[in-house]
């Protein structure tokens, strides 16, 4: 088997899917890219069994064939070659690979392509289309709130719920919860799935900047994302997602409207003085004044700031984890936000005041109980 391909073109396509490959995979062959040639069409696959990525490119080839090529060596070679056509010659008996460039000759040992795990294909699938921008906004807005707790696998991914009028993305780590909804993506039947964080992280890194259509297909066990010449297949998390609607309070009537930028930079400064394990900051709302403070008794550190806000409701003092607030506010585009509160031991809700008509963002965060309230 022999084929010729541009070094930088191949590098670009391989880099798009390389993120899937883990160091020290369960099955050693997964340290390889699977190369398959069919009628001058090269398909490259990378996988960690849970997630697989496939890319296609045109090459000059006279015959069909397949081989598994060690990913790390190949990528490093391509990275260090100036742009030029390179020739791959593969001995189908010994699986040895020879790469020829203008600069010289490189030999490496490949593996039998038939040992590479089979990648699932879509069957009984259901498809929906969305733009790369919508998908990456949905990922960016939710992924940071997913949980690391392997004991509750459902929360280690983002819940996607397709409905006839909208699509909802939900992530939670049980301390905070993000619900991101789009009305411009809908399905003709209700479907839901939990997509693992790793797949979404990879997707986020691979989705093109320019507006591209992403075709999403899924069945009970897998999801398939298709865009440009890249395909991603991931195993879905087969768990029941927590009943998130029930924990979103509807009667938070204590509303605080504040400039997002001011609050965010204030929180970043105050957080420096907060206790290093709880990251607790206090928000004290008195009339139209929002006082933000933190202290770390172990080091005698403390800090206070004052902001003005529009406030509608009783005076209130409530504690939050500053890291959560900073992360959430950092993901909101709006200049102004509304914080909806009810009591110091009840969830707070943050929503942007100006947003696209097609989207709806709700961020919920559980408080950190203040000492004088315990």
């Amino acid at each position, binding site marked *: 088997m022999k084929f010729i391909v541009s070094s930088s073109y191949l590098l670009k396509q391989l880099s798009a899917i390389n993120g899937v490959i883990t160091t020290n995979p369960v099955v050693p062959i997964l340290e390889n890219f699977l190369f398959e040639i069919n009628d001058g069409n090269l398909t490259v696959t990378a996988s960690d069994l849970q997630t697989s990525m496939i890319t296609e490119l045109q090459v000059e080839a006279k015959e069909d064939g397949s081989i598994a090529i060690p990913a790390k060596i190949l990528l490093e070679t391509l990275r260090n070659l100036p742009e030029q056509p390179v020739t791959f010659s593969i001995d189908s008996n010994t699986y040895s690979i020879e790469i020829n460039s203008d600069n010289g000759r490189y030999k490496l040992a490949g593996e039998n392509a038939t040992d590479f795990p089979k990648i699932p294909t879509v069957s009984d699938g259901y498809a929906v289309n969305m733009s790369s921008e919508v998908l990456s906004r949905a990922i960016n807005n939710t992924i940071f709130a997913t949980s690391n707790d392997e004991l509750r696998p459902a929360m280690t991914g983002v819940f996607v719920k397709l409905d006839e009028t909208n699509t909802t993305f939900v992530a939670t780590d049980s301390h905070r919860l993000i619900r991101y909804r789009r009305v411009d993506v809908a399905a003709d039947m209700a479907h839901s799935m939990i997509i693992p964080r790793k797949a979404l992280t990879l997707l986020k890194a691979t989705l093109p900047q320019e507006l591209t259509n992403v075709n999403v297909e899924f069945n009970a066990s897998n999801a398939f994302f298709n865009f440009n010449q890249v395909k991603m297949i991931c195993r879905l998390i087969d768990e029941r997602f927590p*009943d998130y609607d029930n924990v979103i309070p509807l009667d938070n009537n204590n509303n605080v409207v504040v400039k997002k930028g001011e609050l965010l930079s204030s929180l970043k400064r105050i957080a420096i003085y907060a206790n290093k394990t709880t990251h607790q900051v206090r928000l004290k709302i008195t009339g139209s004044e929002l006082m933000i403070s933190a202290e770390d008794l172990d080091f005698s550190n403390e800090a206070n700031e004052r902001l003005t806000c529009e406030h509608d409701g009783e005076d209130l003092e409530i504690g939050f984890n500053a890291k959560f607030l900073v992360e959430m506010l950092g993901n909101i585009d709006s200049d102004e936000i509304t914080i909806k509160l009810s009591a110091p031991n009840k969830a707070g809700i943050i929503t942007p005041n100006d947003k696209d008509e097609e989207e709806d963002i709700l961020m919920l965060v*559980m408080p*950190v109980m203040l000492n004088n309230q315990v």
Partner: protein
Amino acid sequence: MDAFYASVEQLDNPELRGKPVAVGGNSQRGVVAAASYEARKFGVKSAMPSAKAAKQCPNLIFVQPRFPRYKELSHQIRDVFYEYTDLVEPLSLDEAYLDVTENKIGLNSATLIAKEIKTKIKERTGLIASAGISYNKFLAKTASDMDKPDGLCVILPEEAEAFVAKLPVQRFHGIGKVTAEKMVKAGMFTGKDLRKKSLEDLTLRYGKSGQYYYNICRAIDHRVVQPTRDTKSVSAERTFEDNIYELDDVIEEIDRIARISFERYKRSKAEDGHTITIKIKYGDFQQITRSKTDDPSINDEGTYVQIAKSLFTEQLLNEKGIRLIGVGISNFRKDEEPEPVTQLTLEF
């Protein structure tokens, strides 16, 4: 106690008296747990492979250890200690620190107490003990090793500095064989040489132990005698007759040894261990450990064995085979109390 296990064997079996005796297995992989003074003349030492000991001393008599009997005698000996003070810190079955500053019989001389204890031990058990007497733990321990067997060595406060200055680094309690070798290579042969080094220098060379070395070469040791020393770890290990190479066999052995180790853990005073460690010694004596810390604490056998087994993975196998496996638990502490400042959780 002098050559404790071997002396007990000679005590219980008159035929062994005056003969070179080694307590320990004499199989291919056995080691000498204790050697009688007759055997020591031939260079037989504890921790020496039995095969090597037998070569050095062809008439060496190997005796299987009888730990229940040693324990019984150990208790009799400890009872003698408690007649003088409650501040007894056992180091092993046959060694203990005693703080007799204030003692039950109101005797003002530690040396006299040591003599009485030695006599009582001889009367009640027939065994010979050595004692070291001084004003801190380090000096007392060093003194006890000075003129074994049947020794009684006193280091008086005014002699201490001079004594330590002359002491070769190999004889310092707390300086191991390897460290002592390093010190000798670096030109430090005695306490006097050690004293010339600054605290910074010693800490740089020997890490945390630097501070201890800095103190002991000045005969300073502020450690108190702790009657109840907290158990820091409980473990069990086994050396195999033949090296093992297969994953299934390793897992089976870990299962077996973990259960033995768990038994010990339950019998010990220790509880609420959080870390399980497995130790693997390969055919070439290379040794590795793998450990896992879990919250909450590990107190049931199922979890204990399961964690121990999960620590060994196929990658840890190699062509040299495994000669020894150990399983242990450490990090004993109460589960962390929830912080008074609490992050609330959504109730799903």
